[in-house]
Every structure is written in structure tokens, then in C-alpha cells.
């Protein structure tokens, strides 16, 4: 860092010495430090040293920087620049590691994980604790404890024995003995001389432990070669039967390297195949078109009310399956489309009592946009979404199935991984599709897992795989390579010969050494301003638009009752045809089949046969085939031949004149009468009303039964459904039985006991019977309770229930744990559990009463 007159004594001092640019770099890379904004640098330093924040920062380091931190954690504290470099580059000085080292050091320093001048490098204490090896948390370095740590607690006599066996002079105290021993182990030439004498088997044992884990098992009677090692302290006992290889010895055997393999240089992403850029862009555009068609189809499928929302949220497995069948895609892909529509705000729950999914008003607006813009909306929504469709069908930590559109699908790192993967793709030559494994290796280098043995399929790797497949589905990539429109959407400059300026990412404001870096900085997606985002989207739209097929205004009709639209159709045409015929196959073109059912559907939708003929003639490039014309005419001839409606009552009369009279009468209007045949009227009013009404109009109608007989009306008795006779109501409550009485008395006595029991004198507390609750401090309450559990005695407590009502109880505690006391409650005569924080106080009962 900057030259200092006095060395900083703490992280806070080191921070204080930094300039503003350097501090803002820190805060940019660790934004959690300014939420909320710290009051001063001391607070900032404290916060930067908290475990959560340090873990977060460590997880965001690239592999080499992390390895540097790991090496520092096993180095002497404070370490010098050269010591640390030695641990990474080894005794023979790996040139790549030496070259990358200053940058890794600067990164750690910038992120406030490391402080101090180059001669006094210190890792922040929390980071050291996290990274230093311990028996419970072995370090990725595979190093064991130092001689000093391993011999702590060893008897001085034993230490002197070891020192002597190792060929050193005895010392006065253990501290100097340990120091001379570790000096010997750290001295390459003396150490080599010592090991030259070692028996061959002993060397073999050492070579087994050298790269870790450094612990080994020995029997009570070790073999001679092990005894040789143990005697000289080359293996130190940690526990009975266990020995450890001290760190200094391991480092000697490793030629000074803290890691078996250091990876100072990011692995390059390899190109698998290179397609012509034109092929990539058109393939991507084709897929972009499919995206639009699929999302529209999905929402058309859900047009009249989508699937219901599960009580726990999300789409049921069955509905997802059904959707997958409807879209003719595998279920994971269907889940992706559904989630995409959701992320873009095109579909949502309708919030009704029986919730269902439905298109949002935004969908209608979206439909009006030009195709390329529709795609850009979807793709931008996908880029920024934290929801990950790839998780659908998996299980969460509680073993519940994760459903599409349901909760638990958010992964906050998803946008960052997507952006990173696509940026890496952008780094490949134009038209090149990546080798997935090299891409994953690179991502893993940039954010290594801190686990000693990282799972091969951690979340980042899965997110990256999903990104590749989803980008392909969406048409951000084509045949695996980033398309021009995808690149534009990301806000990345065109690959070659372009004059576009570097987007203003964090790179511009970083300290100068960042600029020299061969690898682009691994940071969160560049925070585009809305204006920049809009410009990027517009560029993508402009690139995509000419590649999308133009909508057609015609179809080809064929005699086998099919129609082929050899490309996308204009929307009104597609809508009408979608009703008139069934879709048989989709893709670049659409094949429709006319069936009697589909033609009837169209007639039901209010089209007439002549409409349909005109429609087909207008939109067909070829004459309408005769069988199709016949099909439409046949259906039209029969359509509506039978008419069905609902009526509540009818009036029939052989005399048409009487019906005319009724219809003409104004008073009949209220019955909703309509003539459906010369001698039949139907009414919306029910038969009784109609009968009464016609009678008042002066007619003498008779009611008819369902079989057509005249109903004879006569008075008949009216009956209720079966009913019980009333119970007698005596004065006062019923006489209690013996059980009830017994219980009541017990309760009363117990209550009495609680309020009157004399207890040990305690002036601070209330007194039973005087109505006040006992009051003791919570510590005292706990102690008394625990004592009562031991003795099995009953105690008197004051207790406030959930409603805030105070009461006094006498209880015999059985168990006190987790802030609850379980006790036999004399007052209630049962075992109950009370939260301790609701107990106001406790008092022992006087001896004679308990």
C-alpha cells in the first residue's frame, strides 16, 4: 500500500491510512460493510472482521488469492512478503506464482482481509481462524500444526529428549527447546542431513503424510522406523495412538510449498467448435422465435384460467406435466418457460379465493410489441432473475418438492453466474461454442469452493450448466455460441473492430494494478444505469429484428384437409385459423387440420359458412380444395339445426288466438314469455307464478305434471321435517356428580395451597395469600427451579399467561430445559409446561406445608 512513516498497529489504522479511492474499492467489493453505514473507521474495521462478513469475502476470492490467504494462515504471524511468496512459489520459485503474487496480495489488502506493510503481513484475525488448520477443520493446504502448537502441553522432559534425539543441544526451558527444534526443521540443509539418516520405511511414512491429511495412527508399540521418527519429533503425538506431521517438517518435504498445486493463472475457456457467425445468429434468432411462440402458446393454453395455485404456492406436478405435454417439451423445459413468463411479469396468480394462474395485463401490452422487443423483454427478465427454473422438481432442505412458480426457487447468485458465463462466452472468438468443462473449470477457479473436497456439482456449477442450456433455449446463444444480439443485450461491445467504448464497470475505478490484470475482474454484474440498459436492449432489438421471419398473410390449403402456413402468420389470421382448424405440427411452419369439430367450433364462434369460405379464399394462395368446401358446407348445414334453451315454465294451448291474446296483454310482460311454436309459449317465470298471474289476467289455466297430466290441486297438510320435542329447562345448573365434585374440590384446595402456603422468608418477594405475585430475578428463578427438580419439592410461582393475566400456582418441577419448565401443577392437577420468561418469580414452600 502507500508508504507509511509508522507501521499500522491494527486494521483500523491500516484503513485510516488508505485514500478514498482505495476505501471505495473495498466497499464496492464488500458492500455488506456499509449496510448500515458505519460511523467511523474503527467500526468499519470491526465489521470487516466479523465472521459473516469475512466468510462472504473469502467466498468471493479467486483460487489463487484464496490460496495466498490460506498460505498466510499457515505462515508465521506477522509474515514478510518473501516468506509468503516462498510458501506459494516454493523454494525453486515458480515464476507464474511469483508473477501473480503481487496482485493476489493487493486484492487481499484491498478487501481488508490482510493488513500491515510488506514486512509485517497479517491476516485479519477472523480470516486466520477460518483458514488455519485445526484437527476439526483441516486446511486445504493439508498442513498440520506447527511444532510449537503440537508440543504445547508436552512434558519438558519429553521435549528435551526429542531435542537430544534430533541432535541438538539441550536447553534450559521448553520454549527455547521448541524454538531450536523448529529452527532445525525449517533449515533446509540441516534438515536434509537429518533425513538422510532416516530408515527407508520412515521416509516412506513421511511421504504418505506430506500432502495431508497429516495425521496418522500408531499402535502402542510402534515399529522401529516410526519410533525413529517419533523420537526425533518428526512425528509428534496429538492424542493416544495418533501422531501428526509438524508443519515445518511437511514444508521442508514439500520444498516450501503450502499447496501441492498452486493455480496462479485462470484456466482459459476452450472453444469446442467454431461456427460461422451468421449461422450462430440465425440459429439464435430461430430459437428466439420459438421462445416467443412458446410463451404465447403457454399463455393461450392458460387463456381461460390457468392451473390452480397450490396451497403452498406454485404449480402442481400434474399441471406441470400437462403443460409440458401441451407445449410438447420435456418437463424441465416446460418449467423453464413457465418461470420465464413469470419472471417477465406475464403470468401471475389472480389472487381470487380459489387462486389460479393467469396472464397479467402486462401480457396484453407485451403482445402488442414488435417480435424482437418481445424477445428482449423476456431475455432481460431472464438475465436479472434470481429464480432458477433448474431447481424445479428437486427438493429443498426440508425435503419438500420445489414446484414451478412456487417458493424456494430464488438463488441470489443466479444473475451473477449467468452474467459471468455469458461474459466468458463473449471472450471467445466470434461464433465459438465453449467446451463446457473448461468453462466450469474457469468458473470454479474464479470462485473456488472452500470445502476441502468440493462437491463436483455445487450450486454454481449447476447454475452455470443451466445458464448454458437456458441461453440456448432463449436464443441468447445459438449452437452454443454467444449471438450478436445476446452480446448486445449484455451491454458488451461488439467483438472486433468495434469502436464502442468499454462499459463503465467497476474496472474503471479500480486502483491501477487492476488494469494490468490479464483476467477481467470477477465482480457482480456491472450496474447498468436504466439508460444504458435501454440502449443495450435497443441494440439487441436492432440486431435481432431483421433475423426474425416476417409474418405471412397466406396459407396453403390442401385436399387432405390440411392447411400449411409456411412461416409465422399475422396475428389475426393465426387467431381465426386457430379456431377453424386444429394445429397438427409446429415449428418453422404450422400445419393445421380441418376436422368437423374444428369447423363446428368456428361456427359456434359466430362465423357463418360464407364468412369461412371468404376467409379461406382470401388467405389461400391456391384454390380452396373441394373436400374442404364440402366439409364447411356440411357442418354449416347441420349447425344450429337443433336449438336448446332454458325456460322455467311453458304455456300450451291449441287455440293460437288465446296465446296471441296473452302475448298482447301488457300484464304478461313480467313473465318473460316467448313463442317458440304456434301453440307453445315458454316463460322465464316459474309455473306457480305463471299460474297465479294468468288467473289474475282472467284465464283459467291448469297445471301440468312432467308426464303431461293435469295436476289436481287440493289442500294438503303441511309438515315439518322430523323434529325433537323440547327439553325441559330446570332452574339453575344440574346437580354435579361425584367425579366433578372431587375434581372441583381438588382444584380449589390446590389454589388455596398456592395462595396461602407459608414459604421461606424472603423480604423481596411477595407473600402467599397477600395477593402479590412472588418476584425473583430470572437467574434466581432458574436456580430455584433446578433445585426443586433435584429435591422433587413443590414451589410456589407467579405466572403471567399469554393474555397477560397473572396467577399463582403451586407446581412440582420435573424438568427445566430450553427456557421451559415442565412441572406437575397442583392447581390444575396435571403436568404442564411453562415458559420461564412468563414466571414472575418463585418461592419455596415452607417445610411443614410441602
Amino acid at each position, binding site marked *: 500500500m502507500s508508504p507509511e512513516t509508522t507501521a499500522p498497529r491494527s486494521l483500523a489504522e491500516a484503513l485510516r491510512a488508505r485514500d478514498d479511492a482505495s476505501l471505495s474499492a473495498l466497499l464496492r467489493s464488500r458492500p455488506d460493510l456499509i449496510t448500515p453505514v458505519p460511523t467511523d473507521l474503527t467500526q468499519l474495521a470491526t465489521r470487516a472482521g466479523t465472521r459473516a462478513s469475512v466468510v462472504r469475502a473469502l467466498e468471493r476470492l479467486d483460487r489463487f488469492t484464496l490460496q495466498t490467504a490460506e498460505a498466510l494462515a499457515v505462515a508465521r504471524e506477522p509474515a514478510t512478503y518473501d516468506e509468503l511468496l516462498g510458501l506459494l512459489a516454493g523454494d525453486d520459485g515458480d515464476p507464474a506464482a511469483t508473477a501473480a503474487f503481487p496482485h493476489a496480495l493487493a486484492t487481499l489488502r484491498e478487501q481488508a482481509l490482510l493488513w500491515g506493510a510488506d514486512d509485517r503481513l497479517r491476516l485479519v484475525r477472523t480470516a486466520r481462524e477460518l483458514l488455519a488448520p485445526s484437527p476439526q477443520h483441516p486446511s486445504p493446504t493439508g498442513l498440520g500444526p506447527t511444532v510449537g502448537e503440537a508440543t504445547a502441553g508436552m512434558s519438558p522432559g519429553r521435549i528435551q529428549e526429542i531435542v537430544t534425539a534430533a541432535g541438538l543441544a539441550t536447553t534450559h526451558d521448553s520454549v527455547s527447546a521448541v524454538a531450536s527444534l523448529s529452527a532445525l526443521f525449517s533449515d533446509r540443509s540441516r534438515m536434509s542431513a537429518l533425513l538422510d539418516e532416516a530408515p527407508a520405511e520412515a521416509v516412506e511414512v513421511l511421504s504418505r503424510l506430506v500432502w495431508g491429511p497429516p495425521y496418522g495412527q500408531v499402535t502402542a508399540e510402534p515399529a522401529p522406523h516410526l519410533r525413529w521418527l517419533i523420537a526425533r519429533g518428526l512425528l509428534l503425538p496429538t492424542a493416544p495412538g495418533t501422531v501428526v506431521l509438524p508443519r515445518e517438517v511437511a514444508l521442508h518435504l514439500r520444498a516450501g510449498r503450502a499447496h501441492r498445486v498452486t493455480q496462479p493463472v485462470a484456466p482459459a475457456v476452450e472453444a469446442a467448435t467454431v461456427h460461422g457467425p451468421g449461422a450462430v445468429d*440465425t*440459429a439464435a*434468432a*430461430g*430459437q428466439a*422465435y*420459438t421462445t416467443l411462440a412458446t410463451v404465447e402458446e403457454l399463455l393461450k393454453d392458460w387463456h381461460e384460467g390457468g392451473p390452480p395455485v397450490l396451497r403452498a404456492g406454485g404449480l402442481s406436478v400434474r399441471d406441470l406435466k400437462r403443460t409440458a405435454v401441451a407445449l*410438447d417439451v420435456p418437463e424441465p423445459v416446460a418449467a423453464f418457460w413457465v418461470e420465464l413468463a413469470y419472471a417477465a411479469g406475464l403470468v401471475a396468480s389472480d389472487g381470487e379465493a380459489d387462486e389460479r394462474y393467469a396472464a397479467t395485463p402486462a401480457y396484453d401490452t407485451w403482445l402488442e410489441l414488435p417480435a424482437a422487443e418481445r424477445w428482449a423483454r423476456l431475455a432481460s427478465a431472464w438475465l436479472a432473475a434470481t429464480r432458477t427454473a433448474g431447481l424445479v422438481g428437486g427438493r429443498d432442505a426440508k425435503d419438500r418438492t420445489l414446484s414451478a412458480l412456487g417458493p424456494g426457487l430464488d438463488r441470489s447468485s443466479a444473475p451473477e453466474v449467468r452474467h459471468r458465463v455469458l461474459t466468458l462466452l463473449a471472450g471467445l472468438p466470434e461464433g465459438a461454442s465453449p467446451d463446457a468443462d473448461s468453462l466450469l473449470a474457469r468458473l470454479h477457479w474464479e470462485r473456488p469452493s472452500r470445502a476441502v473436497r468440493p462437491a463436483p456439482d455445487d450450486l454454481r456449477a449447476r447454475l452455470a450448466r443451466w445458464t448454458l442450456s437456458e441461453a*440456448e433455449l432463449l436464443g441468447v446463444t*445459438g*449452437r*452454443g455460441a454467444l449471438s450478436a444480439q445476446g452480446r448486445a443485450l449484455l451491454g458488451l461491445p461488439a467483438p472486433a473492430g468495434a469502436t464502442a467504448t468499454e462499459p463503465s464497470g467497476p474496472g474503471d475505478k479500480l486502483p491501477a494494478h487492476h488494469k494490468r490484470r490479464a483476467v477481467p475482474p470477477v465482480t457482480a454484474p456491472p450496474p447498468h444505469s436504466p439508460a444504458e440498459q435501454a440502449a443495450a436492449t435497443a441494440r439487441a432489438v436492432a440486431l435481432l429484428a431483421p433475423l426474425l*421471419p416476417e409474418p405471412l398473410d397466406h396459407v*396453403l390449403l*390442401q*385436399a*387432405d*384437409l*390440411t392447411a*400449411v402456413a*409456411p*412461416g409465422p402468420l399475422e396475428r389475426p389470421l393465426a387467431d381465426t385459423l386457430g379456431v377453424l382448424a386444429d394445429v397438427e*405440427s*409446429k*415449428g*418453422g*411452419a404450422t*400445419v393445421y387440420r380441418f376436422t368437423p369439430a374444428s369447423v363446428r367450433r368456428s361456427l359456434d364462434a359466430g362465423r357463418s359458412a360464407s364468412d369461412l369460405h371468404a376467409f379461406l379464399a382470401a388467405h389461400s394462395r*391456391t384454390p380452396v*380444395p*373441394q*373436400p374442404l368446401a*364440402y366439409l364447411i358446407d*356440411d357442418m354449416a348445414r*347441420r349447425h344450429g339445426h337443433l336449438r336448446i334453451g332454458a325456460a322455467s315454465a311453458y304455456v300450451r294451448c291449441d287455440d293460437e288466438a288465446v296465446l296471441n291474446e296473452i302475448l298482447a296483454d301488457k300484464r304478461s310482460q313480467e313473465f318473460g314469455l316467448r313463442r317458440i311454436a304456434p301453440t307453445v309459449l315458454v316463460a322465464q317465470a316459474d309455473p306457480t307464478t305463471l299460474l297465479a298471474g294468468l288467473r289474475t289476467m282472467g284465464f283459467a289455466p291448469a297445471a301440468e305434471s312432467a308426464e303431461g297430466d293435469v295436476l289436481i290441486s287440493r289442500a294438503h297438510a303441511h309438515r315439518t321435517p322430523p323434529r325433537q320435542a323440547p327439553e325441559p329447562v330446570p332452574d339453575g345448573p344440574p346437580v354435579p356428580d361425584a367425579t366433578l365434585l372431587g375434581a372441583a374440590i381438588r382444584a380449589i384446595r390446590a389454589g388455596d395451597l398456592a395462595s396461602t402456603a407459608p414459604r421461606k422468608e424472603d423480604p423481596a418477594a411477595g407473600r402467599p395469600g397477600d395477593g402479590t405475585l412472588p418476584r425473583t430475578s430470572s437467574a434466581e428463578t432458574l436456580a430455584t427451579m433446578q433445585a426443586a427438580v433435584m429435591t422433587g419439592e413443590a414451589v410456589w410461582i407467579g405466572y403471567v399467561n399469554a393474555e397477560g393475566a397473572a396467577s399463582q400456582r403451586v407446581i412440582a418441577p420435573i424438568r427445566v430445559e430450553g427456557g421451559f419448565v415442565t412441572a406437575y401443577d397442583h392447581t390444575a392437577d396435571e403436568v404442564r409446561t411453562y415458559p420461564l420468561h412468563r414466571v414472575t418469580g418463585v418461592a419455596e414452600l415452607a417445610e411443614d406445608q410441602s
Partner: protein
Amino acid sequence: MNGPLIVQSDKTLLLEVDHDLADACRRAIAPFAELERAPEHIHTYRVTPLGLWNARAAGHDAEQVVDALVEFSRYPVPHALLVDIAETMDRYGRLTLSKHPAHGLVLTTTDRPVLEEVLRSKRIAPLVGARIDPDTVAVHPSERGQIKQTLLKLGWPAEDLAGYVDGEAHAIELDETGWALRPYQRQAVENFWHGGSGVVVLPCGAGKTLVGAGAMAEAKATTLILVTNTVSARQWKHELVKRTSLTEDEIGEYSGTRKEIRPVTIATYQVLTTRRKGVYPHLELFDSRDWGLILYDEVHLLPAPVFKFTADLQARRRLGLTATLVREDGRESDVFSLIGPKRFDAPWKEIEAQGYIAPADCVEVRVNLTDSERLAYATAENEEKYRFCATTATKRKVTEALVRRFAGQQILVIGQYIDQLDELGEHLNAPVIKGETSNAQREKLFDAFREGEISVLVVSKVANFSIDLPEATVAIQVSGTFGSRQEEAQRLGRVLRPKADGHQAHFYSVVARDTIDQDFAAHRQRFLAEQGYAYRIMDADEVLADTE
């Protein structure tokens, strides 16, 4: 990007036939895509695993297929589809059946995990013998067909390079005096012989018998010919005597009435599948001679027991002949694994365009039921409904009118129900051929029809297959076996033989309007409409009015 081909997401390919590049495209995709529909403007091809493996068997590789799609496609071809095609094609040939000098029939692999995978299958385990080396496993020679069938079901079709036995040699020559094999027939024979075994798909009337004769002339070995029925068997015999160096005595008939086994034996499916006490007594015919070639006529009708037996005949050359690979029972994959891949295919319209089959005018005549018939139809039991509407009296009037209209031409009236046919025969004053008509009587009537002595013949479904009526120019179908698509194709085939005078053929289907007869007719016609035969629709009244 303005090719004639559109690739659909369901793996169908749409080919715009009026496009300039349509012919080039058709040639490029025909090896791997099955023509599914060929109506007037857009032909539909389907890419299926079987089709892709057929292409592999014919020596095409995935790159050619992908190139063809990418070159001719109008829109970008989905990458996933290309990957899928490459992967599917790659599955063929990973496993090979071949002859091992020491161990006999062996299954070898170029990809060890595949062999491990199939060997773990419970269905494969009983079919294989000892593991010879990590890549080879012995197969019992009798399981050659069974293992191919099972491997295909597992999705790893095996390439059969184990070769064929020559069989008992027998001199057979084509006698091409006064005629010659047509170019496509020659091509079909060549493709078959080169491929070893397989299926040749040709339209009815395109001379499949001659392809068979050509194959026999190549094999020059004893031949077993399997046909659908006795009439067809006689037909084959007749044709073979006429077109080849074979004499009557060299050809035997193995049917219900005669049981001759000669160097060339023609057997019916029916006799082979006759079952007595749970066994098929006549299946030993397959072993009765050292056959060099087995011919299956009308492969799409091959009954299941014959499949079973064919599985044991994998060392003999097999040729399947058919007009369509569509099987109503969906056993296309068994045809592929047991008889062989498709070796030759020519669309009907193409052969028609070359003038080898007659152009046909297909008409559906719709008759209205009378009011009383409609009432009776409505009240008929479900299983009786079709019979009722198919045999309505109005059909008789229309048929008579049509016969009058084409008076002087050779007319076939085809139907399903004997009562209806008898009644028609009576009214038309024409002989009726049905199941109970003796074979002698049938042949006599057919001869008379051929000679022009009688001009109208009423036939039941016994005449569906393989009888050659060269001069029939008009067929009138009054009823059928419900919605059978291949029956419709066979019946149309009756009039498609090229006519001496280049007459247009007419195919009339008389259908009762607004009944299930019409639904069945629509289903039956689908195959032909898809083959490019557009049906016209006429009202019965027009027909009746025209002829008055």
C-alpha cells in the same frame, strides 16, 4: 435462407413441392425421412429412428443428414434436433452381428459401455452365450432374429453382417422377350441384392411381382414365396411361368387344397398360420428345403406367427414387398428388424408421372338416407349402425347409375356385405365373387372378365389382394371393412394398372351422408389423400341426374 424445406419441432419435414429446389431436396432427404403425406402443395416427411437407421444401413452418415437439413431448410434448424439426429444415427452400428471363424455367430461392439448396457438387460441375457473378449459375446445362431428384435427395442439396433447361406442352387433367369424390367424395378432389385435383405415399397400395380422375379433371378436358388391367399398364389405362379425360365413343374403351391413342395414354392399365410392343438403343423415348410430366398408378399399383412418363425430364418435372404409400411397393428419395427430395412421406395405419384400406373380420378359420392332410413339408423344398435348405413338402398341406385355411365368399360363393384353384393349382382345382372365361390369358379370368372366377356364383376373382400385384373378401369366401392386405410389403397390399386389405351381410371366410393359411413370413409381416404390422390365429392343427385 429461402429453401423449400421447413423443419418442424415434432421432427416432421415439410417440403414445398412447387419450389425450384424441391426435387434436389427430395433426393437429399428421401434416404432418411419417411414420406408421410404427399398432397398437392406440401409434402410431409417424418424423421424417425427407424428411418435414420434405414439411412445408416444404406451407408449414409449423420453429417449428410444434417447437411441436407441445414442446406435446404428455410428457417434455422433447431440445434437440439440436429444433435438428436446425430445421436440416434450414432446408435446404429455400435453393435454388429457377424460370423466368427471359431465361435460362430458373435455380437461385437465398438463401444464397450453399450455392450455392457445391453448385456445387463434381462431380455438379452438368455440370448447370448459366453463372453469371448471384452468387446465380443457369442450369440446362439438360432437367436439371430430374436436378438436383433430385442436390441432394436432397446434402442441399439445391430448391424447384421453375418451373411447368408446360399441355399440350394436352382437356375432361374428372367425371360425378357417382349418386355423389360422398368428402371425403378431394376433399381429396387439392385438395392435389395446389394443390401442382402430388406423391404421394397412400391404402389399397387407398379409391378411388385416382377421385382420378386428379378430378385429370384439374382439369387438363382430355391425360393419360398409367401402370399396372402390362394388366388394370389396362382397369380404369382402364372406370372413367374410367363416372365422367367421357370416351368409349371418347378413351381409348387402349398395351400389349403394342395401341398406341393418344389424348387419354387408359393405358400399362403393362411395355411402357415393354421393351428392344430396349439401347434402350427405347416411351419415345417420353412425347413423342408434349403431355401436360398424367402419372398414376403404384402409385408404389411404379415401375421404375427410368421414373424415369430421369420426370426429363426435370419441366415436366409429375405425380400419383403408391400405398397405401404403402414401397419394397422404398428409392428413396423418388427418388419425392420426381422425382414430388413427399407431398400427401395417410390412415391405413387412419381410412378404415375412416369406412366407406369394409370392416373386415377377418385370420387366420393354422398347419398342421403331417406327419412325412414334415418329413423331406422338412429334406432339401430351401435354394432349394427355401420352395416345399416353402408347398405342403404340409395347406394344401389347410385351404383346402377354409375355402371350405366361407364357402360362398355370393365367395372368392379366392391363391397363388404354379402347381402348387399348379392342384391347388386341381381340388379346389375353381374356375377358375384364371394368367400363361398370356389377357386375354380373364381378363376373362370376372372378370366372371363379379363377377356371382356363380362364387363361388370361384383366382388367381396376376397378380391382385396393380389388378383390381377388388368383391364378394370372403374371401381365402385359400396362398403368396406370400417376405416381400413390399407384396404382403400388396395382397392384403388385394382384400377391403377396401366391401361392399354391410356384410359383414365375411376375410383368411386359411395358413402351415406351424415352417418358413421362418412366418418369411416374420411379415415380410409386419408392415406390416399396423403399420397396425393385428391378425392372429389359429388352428391348422389348429381350422379343420378347426369345419367338420366
